[in-house]
């Protein structure tokens, strides 16, 4: 199979996934989207093994590695900084005598509740996808992915 056919099939699978997602949301059936996503990944992997053209080599592997490492480096700093603050808020235990906390105002105000913290961490996970795409574009450009030639 040629690589263009492969990319075409991947596009069709993505469209099918979108349709499944829409159906799943309309009928409130979460399981369908989850199962479809896993099936799609396995399907793409299987089709990819049958591609005869070279679509991955040491340069593309390097681009992927560099983008992944940079994403991880940035992501763990952001996530840890947030998580440390969240854990400190959850584990807030007064260590001073109770008389000191006689006034109700001594406890710091809750900015993010545990539920919102969870959602914010989910948002950070989604942010990682965009970070990865950004870094991938940067390194692809750096290693000449969009260079053109007279040939």
């Amino acid at each position, binding site marked *: 199979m040629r690589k263009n056919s492969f990319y075409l099939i991947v596009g069709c699978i993505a469209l099918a996934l979108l349709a499944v997602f829409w159906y799943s949301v309309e009928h409130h059936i979460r399981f369908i989207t989850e199962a479809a996503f896993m099936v799609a990944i396995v399907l793409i992997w299987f089709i990819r093994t049958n591609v005869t053209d*070279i679509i991955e*080599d*040491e*340069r*593309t592997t390097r681009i992927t590695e560099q983008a992944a490492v940079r994403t991880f480096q940035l992501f763990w700093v952001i996530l840890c900084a947030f998580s440390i603050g969240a854990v400190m808020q959850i584990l807030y235990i007064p260590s001073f005598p109770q008389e000191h906390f006689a006034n109700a105002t001594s406890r710091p105000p809750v900015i993010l509740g545990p539920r919102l913290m969870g959602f914010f961490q989910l948002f950070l996970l989604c942010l990682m996808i965009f970070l990865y795409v950004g870094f991938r574009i940067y390194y692809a450009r750096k*290693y*000449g992915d969009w*260079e053109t*030639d007279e*040939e």
Partner: protein
Amino acid sequence: MKNKIKVFRAMHDMTQEDLAQVTGVTRQTILAIEKGKYVPSLDLAFRIARTFNVTIEDVFQYEAAAPITVGID
């Protein structure tokens, strides 16, 4: 890292696509190496040189980025 891949390709009447197929990489990688955007691994450098039946030094010329000088006051 400078290279003479383009010259050797012309001598052997090979296109970037031909060289890419022989060495097992994408055409974009050959183009990136020719333009100096990507420095190939030693393994790929050997494969390219052997495709042209020459040594690595004939194809690739190393250039130090900046000479290291130690100042003594």
